[in-house]
Each structure stands twice: as C-alpha cells, then as structure tokens.
C-alpha cells in the first residue's frame, strides 16, 4: 500500500450521478479484485474509498455514484488533474480454481465485479453476471461485462430493461444460479441482506461498504458486525466477506 499521485485520463458520465474515471497509476503494484483505493478529496477531511472496477496495464478504472460532497467532488475532476490516493487497500478476492461463478451487481455495486469478471475470464473460469439497477439508465458497464462473461442477465426493479423485479427475485429463478459453484455480490445493504435469506446453497461472498476513517487498519472506524457478534474491519479483513459470517 503506497500513497501516490495519479493523473485523470478520462472522466465520463455513465448515467444519473454515475461516473467512470480512468487514472494512470505510476509504479502500480499488483492489484486484486475487491481491493480499493482511498482518494483524497476537497471539502471533507477524510479520504473516500473507491473499488477497482477495471485495469488496463498501469491504468485503473473506478466507477462512482454521487451520494455526498466527496463523491460529488470526484465526479467533477478533469482530465489531467492529479489525484492523491493511497492503495491498494483491503484483501483481494481469492480467484476460485473452478467455475462457473455467478456475479451479482446492484447499482454502482456492479463496478468491482467487472474487474473480478475480467480476472476470472483471463483464467478461463466461466462466469455469469446479473447486472441490476432501479431503472434502465442506472444500469452500468453492461457492454463491458458482455466482453468477459459467458452470460449477462440484466434486471431492473421497474422492468424498464431486462427482467423486472428485485435482483434477489430474479436470481432465484435463474438456472445459472443453481449451476454456480460460488457467488460474488456487491450492492446496497438491503440487497445483500435479502440475498442472505433466499436459501442459496453455495458460498456467497459480499463486497461490503462502511464509513471508513483510514482504510488502513489504523482507527477501527470501519466496523461491521460478524455472526460471532464481534466487529470486523472492512478495510483490513475485508472488504469481501463470506455472507454467512456477517450480520446485516
């Protein structure tokens, strides 16, 4: 984990409040899907976490949704601007040896799964993705997923594109779900909580968020409650956890 300055190569709007940033990372160490970087922002004291959404050589992609002043500031950065980041933070996903793998992305949560899908496909592991959002124009990265997944299933809560309904309801009906050896999910907390209750037999790993102080294990600000009633640090032990191990 190092602190670095990275120029913005591209900042593109993907949908309402959704932005894609490509940054050039000088001296980039090995990065893993699930890992994140901590971005220094203006207007807030602490850094903000964004997950790696994709990689091309030493360039990394991040996808963000504006929810407050930190992400709003990041959404307006210009090409050429230098960002101050620390990373890669957190534990990466251990790429499974066997597929098929199923990826479940809700909203901006699809972003880190794209990088996982790319690494899976590079290793020749079959993976299917369900990309979900509330409505059509909030669906992100569908074309990119199609490049690296065996099948991409789209669903929207309002039915404006693909299957109609909540991601968990759609997942329950798919034959890909029964075939999958392991599932990875990233999305809003209610989605992850619902996923816990639909009785999937296979291991499900969830990419978690939490409000973070440092992202580096220094402050214990990022607690998430475990099944054992202890708190775990999202930034250090996570951000990817076995869904059965955490309380949501």
């Amino acid at each position, binding site marked *: 984990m190092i602190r670095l300055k990275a120029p913005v190569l591209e900042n593109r709007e993907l949908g309402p409040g959704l932005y894609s940033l490509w940054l050039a990372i000088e001296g980039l160490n090995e990065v893993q899907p699930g890992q994140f970087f901590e971005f220094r922002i203006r207007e807030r004291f602490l850094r903000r976490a964004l997950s790696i959404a994709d990689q091309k050589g030493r360039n990394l992609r991040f996808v963000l949704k504006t929810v407050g002043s930190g992400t709003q500031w990041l959404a307006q950065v210009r090409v050429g601007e230098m960002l101050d980041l620390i990373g890669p933070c957190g534990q990466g996903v251990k790429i499974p040896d066997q597929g098929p793998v199923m990826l479940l992305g809700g909203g901006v949560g699809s972003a880190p799964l794209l990088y996982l899908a790319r690494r899976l496909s590079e290793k020749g592991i079959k993976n299917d993705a369900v990309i979900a959002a509330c409505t059509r124009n909030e669906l992100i990265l569908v074309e990119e997923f199609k490049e690296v997944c065996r099948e991409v299933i789209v669903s929207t809560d309002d039915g404006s594109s693909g299957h109609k309904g909540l991601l968990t309801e759609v997942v329950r009906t798919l034959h890909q779900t029964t075939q999958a050896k392991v599932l990875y999910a990233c999305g809003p907390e209610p989605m992850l909580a619902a996923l816990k209750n639909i009785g999937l037999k296979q291991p499900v790993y969830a990419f978690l968020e939490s409000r973070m102080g*440092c992202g580096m294990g220094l*402050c214990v600000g990022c607690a998430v409650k475990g099944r054992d009633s*202890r708190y775990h640090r999202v930034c250090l032990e996570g951000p990817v956890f076995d869904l059965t191990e955490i309380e949501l």
Partner: protein
Amino acid sequence: MNVKLGKTTFRNPLVLASGTFGYGLTFPEVIEKVGALVTKGITVEERIGNPPPRIWDSAETVVNSVGLENVGLQRFQTEILPMIPTSTPVYVNLAGVDLGDFKSILQPLGQDQRIAGFELNLSCPNVKEGGAALGQSSRKVSEVTALARSLTVKPIWVKLTSNFCDVREISKAAADAGADAVVLVNTLNALVIDVEKRKPFLGAGSGGLSGPAVKPHVLYIVREISRIIDIPVIASGGVVSGLDVFEYLLAGARLVQLGSINLVDPGAALRILEELKDLFRREGVNSPTEIIGRLEDR
C-alpha cells in the same frame, strides 16, 4: 529537534496519538522518525466497541465513536507486546472504569521493559463508564494518578478532557498526584444528526470531535494550563502542519500529538517534521526548547 521531558529525551516533539496508529505494528518507517507513539487505549477486558457508523467528517472535523475497541490486557500482552516497535518509545494508553481496572493493568505492565511509559486515558467521551467520567473529577484524577504512580516508575502522562469540567483544577490534581505530564485534550463531545431519521447519526448516539477545527480551542487550553502547572503539557488537537506544531510549542506544549491527520496520510508525521525544520530554519530557531512557552502577551 530533541526535547527533554523530565529525564526522558525525545528525538523530536512529534507523538503519534492514541487511536490513530493502532498498536504501532504498521508503517515502521514513520514510527522510527517520531518522538514517541501512543497505542490504542487498552482495557482489562477486550472491548468490541460501539455499533457502526463510527465515524463522520466535515472539511475540518472528524467525529468518531469507536468506543475503545481493543484486544484487552491479556491479548495485548501475548500478541501485541512481543511485536511492539523498538525504534521509538511506546506509551501505552490505558482506560478503565475504576481504580481496580488501572491496578489490574499496571501491575503486570508497570515494569515491562518494552513499554516507555503510560498515558492514562481519563477522557474518552465514547464509553458509558469510566473514560471522561473519571477525568471530570479532580478527586478521581488524583486517585487514579496516585495509584498509577505507586505501580510504576515509568513516565505517566494523564490525558484529560475539557468537556463539562474545569481543566485547570483537574490538571493541578494530576500534577500534584505525581503525573509526569498532562495531555490536553481528548476529543470534544459531539453530536451529528441524521435529519431524515430524526436520530443521532453515529451508532453510539454521540462521539468525539477532533481535527483542524479544534486547534484554536486546544491552543487556548494549552496556554492557560502550561502557565499554572509545573509539569510539562503535551498538546493534542487538530495538528496538520509544521506550523501547527510551532504554534503549540509557543503556547507552552513540550510535545505535540498528531491524531486525525494520520488517518488521511499515515506518513503525515514525516511531512510535518520537515515543515517544522524549515520553519525553524526560517525563524532562526535552533531547538524546540528555545520557543516552548515563548508566546508573548498582546
């Protein structure tokens, strides 16, 4: 950059503050360059800490309600102490509910060679019992400090609060009971509101305020207290630059702690040290001792 505090010499006045550098097990390249490091607060029993969310920020503040989550005395002894850095003096921050707790911790740790000294945390706003409740009473501060004094010959720093109390009386009580220094001050009581839910935002209901916004308040306290007590004052509040450290030294602090800034940049101490050296060069200052408490009157 040396500073003396009693019989101890520190390589420079910068101290990594409790709760913002874990137990000192990471970033050795930073730790070896500072004057000292204070560990996360240790309690007799392990504490799981407060429910999330535990942290909130604005441009110039951090509000945290971690709630002294720590591994507890036993695991501290078996898992942490053997790994504790030797490149820098390590002060162990101790918290407890009553005298018995401090005794239980100081009896086994009081003479441990790996520990440079102790910081008694009588000021944590994030726990229901102990913490600031002890630090708000001169009598209790005096009792805990005297007890600690009887259990260790190592330096004892007493970390105090300015919440709902008279820091002047309490600092005097700590000094009279044998403290080697007072640390001013722990985080200020703070409330963040979630308007939509009409509830406090932080899981614990309230938290402790730190960061640049608290500096003018803490500078004031440091100046007032350093004028009325005979033991050294260590400042803690809002330092983000070498200039901030210079100001605290002028106001009367002998050592200056860095807290929240470590969360933003774990290497901040190195930058701040360079800035302080530059400032000394520009101001023609040869050593911190030359400026400690040299703030003039208007």
